[in-house]
């Protein structure tokens, strides 16, 4: 099961990274979102994979899931949403102001003219 979990994380990370390396804004934002899923899964798993663990404290129950990574990942999910939102709106703003959705600074395409 651990191997399977790790494989899923790896595939999501790879797909996200591939998209993040694209040259247009929308795939990059999607890629970052995908990457954040992978990161959240990874962080979550640092507490171990618990099956049928209790989520809340009950008398006489000793089998609990590790709450600490859960708390960290919970805020990470919300912050990840804020980040996704910010970057996609930034992309829209760039398109509105510059008319392009390319991620690269267009001046970087050609070598700069030497000026003395």
């Amino acid at each position: 099961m651990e191997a399977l979990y790790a494989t899923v994380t790896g595939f999501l990370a790879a797909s996200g990274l591939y998209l993040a390396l694209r040259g247009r804004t929308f795939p990059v934002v999607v890629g970052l979102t995908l990457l954040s899923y992978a990161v959240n899964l990874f962080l979550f798993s640092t507490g171990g994979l618990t099956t049928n663990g209790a989520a809340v404290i009950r008398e006489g129950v000793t089998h609990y899931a590790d709450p600490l990574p859960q708390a960290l990942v919970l805020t990470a999910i919300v912050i990840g949403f804020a980040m996704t939102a910010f970057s996609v709106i930034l992309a829209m703003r760039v398109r509105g102001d510059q008319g392009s959705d390319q991620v690269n600074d267009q001046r970087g395409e050609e070598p700069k003219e030497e000026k003395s």
Partner: protein
Amino acid sequence: MSLPLIVLLPLLGSLIPLLSSNRQRNLNAWSTALLPAIALGIVIAHAPGVIAGEVYHSSMSWVPQLGLDLAFRLDGLSLLFLLLILGIGLLIILYSRYYLSPEDSMPRFYAYLMLFMTSMIGIVMADNLLLLWVFWELTSLSSFLLIGYWYRQSEARRGARMALAVTGMGGLAMLAGFLLIGHIVGTFDLQTVLDSRELIQADPRYLPALLLVLLGAFTKSAQFPFHFWLPHAMAAPTPVSAFLHSATMVKAGVFLLARLHPALAGSQLWLYIVTLTGLVTMIYAAYFALLKYDLKGVLAFSTVSHLGLITMLFGLDSKLAVVAGLFHIINHAMFKAALFMSSGIIDHETGTRDIRKLSGLRHSMPMTAALSGLAAASMAGVPLLNGFISKEMMLTETLESSLLGGLAWLIPVLATLGSILSVAYSLRLIRNVFFGPEAKELPKAPHEAPFPMRLPMLLLVGLCVVIGLIPAVIVSGVLDAAAQATILAPRPELHLSIWHGFNLPLLMSAIALAGGVGIYAVRRNLFSFQRQFPQRNALMIFEHSVRRLLHWTQVAIDRLENGSLQRYMLWLIVAVLFLTGSGLLDLDQLQGSRQPQPLDGLLLAGAGITILAGLGTAVLHRRRLVSLMMLSVVGLMVSLAFARFSAPDLALTQLAVEVVTVILLMLALFFLPQRTPKESTGARVVRDVLLAAGFGGVVASLNYALLTRPLDSISGFFLDNSVSGGGGHNVVNVILVDFRGFDTLGEITVLCIAAIGIYKLLNRLRLFMPSSDSEGRPWSKDLHPMLLATVSQTLLPLALLVSVFIFLRGHNEPGGGFIAGLVTAVALILLYIARGVDWAQQRLSFQYQPIAVTGVAIATLTGLGSWLFGHNFLTSAFGHFSIPFIGEIELATAMLFDLGVYLTVVGATLMILANLGKLTTRHRPSKENEKETV
């Protein structure tokens, strides 16, 4: 103790001139002089004690972690320098009052001057190496302001920049040296350092420490080859030059040599480096002083030359040489300040400083001529003046030196040569300017300057004469005390007097005077000799090298930062792969000792769907809508994974966020191109696939290695204390709102800031609105489907009720502020989608920004509230209450905090989505109207 006052008063004094206007010139000058005068009074009050051998200390802790204390001391060396700095400083204040023209801002000038004076005082009084360094850099900064005072002149700007670059860099080297010394000794306390001579010199780090400290001293004191900045600092107003280059700035370097003399001097290394640097500087600069046409240029090079002389004396391994050096510091400060003032008066009254134009000024300004003549004679070492005595001592000491072994005779010979040149340029200065026929074509008709402007000169030259005649009476006390502080022993027997009988030094002095006159007589030959060398301007070379440095830096920056996000990502990923990969290589084997858990079919299917959807998102990315749908599948599967592995809170959150994210991205996609053009070259795709595969492999390996290794978690603490300490059974929620509440507060603040940033980004954004999708199909005319509208409206109260429920039970059951907030936000967004922004806004007539901000405020205030009860920030309290019909519930202050979280999440999410949604409707009604009219 009043020691800190000596530093503090001039510092306050830098504010005083700023209080009066530029027009009240007398008031400005007098009020500025007041505080340093009081400081001088305090110094003088301490003087008898210091001369009697006492050392005053005063210390306050500043940054104890760094070993930096506000520690001041007043010993003989400090006393000598304080008298010079404050005494000459006061004269400069008086002189500047008449020197500055009405267009120059007097308050600014005085403020800079006082700031500089403060930093100088700090250097000489510091009782802690780091504090000394702080003031040292302050002198670099404030002298930059002073040299660049006439900032409209490019010469002044460039001169100031060069001085700052050279002395600032030297200062940094010095700091490195101090840090080494501090490491060797174990403290930065000056007294301890001075007492640890054997320890320091036996340490292998002595060599680098000495070199670095000397680099600082030599750059500041303009020693060869770092002398080049000083002549260009002459672009400063003349009072500044008179202050900086006689008594202060450049003397800081030689002060440092004297201050650290007990700790660093005495080794062969010190002897060679310091003595020879001083000697070379003395002769080199004296030669160039002879060749300059600018009055201040002559004085600048002569300053460098005399500093060389002092440096050489501090280098020689004789106690008397140190005394001679200290004595020459006093004498040089006096005659050089007087000469600079004279050049300022000449410039002021004739409009030029060019020696070739000036001539015969003794007729029009007799007093200035007489005073300058005396000061120059002192500089040349003419008997009966103070310069003669210290020069005589210098020549005596060079004869005693054993440096260079068999070639020891070179030192006195070269010292005599330096003296000859010194006589020659002093003679040239006076004879060419004040004697000869009266100059005709001067920019202004020369006449004597107002008396108060000549008064400082008169006092200084008067002192030169008095010290020259009766040295023992005037300076012996201060000099003794200073010598004692520098060589940490009572001053060796020395009779300060003008007559020591016929001896070799006297002969050398006579040779110097005669030789100087001789050189002066044949100076034209020297000029024509020098003309065959190409002119080299230090400023040009310096500026050129700075430009070259900037150019190469720019080239390097352009290589690394070319504006391509893809390239930055590449570097980042390569770095990650390298660092993480090398860590993985160190593992013995990937699999750890923990037993793997069993697989089942459901898990396999789930994993398969997730992987396929993830790959699909990437592979189909050019069809953006499809890619987005794939992404949402991944999100849902992740949410299921959380549920499967016993994390219901996470599952709920992920589900809600997934909904919001997909709505957000759909809205964004409406404004962005629906498809990504095929741009990447095959090679690029291959490269990225390889990178991504490598990255995925590393992440998977890391994750697997982690999962199969024994787990040692700190979570036991949270599980044990959640109920007793936080009053809640849902540990995740208790961690969020209680144990790690401060983190959560930070996170909702970030969320709120991001939302506000988005709000600003969307402000006045105008975007092209496509009238059809990528396939060319027009958008549906049915904007707000009846079914959706009805259902969403019906669902709204229910959804709100659910969110209240989730919120209330969050502390004990899965739920909480984050999830409740997201549910509320989704319910409201659904209403926006179903009914349109206009409809929704008419009914929900509140702004979302205040809601989000209120949320953060409530959370913060909850945290602050615990201060009222004397607890730490965000300490929670809870109790059980019984409410009729509902029963007993548990209320904790953490719930209030959670309310803040809830409001922030609702406000921020709606601020983002509602404002984005508004963009879609801004033009739409008008477009429809157009269609209808057509």
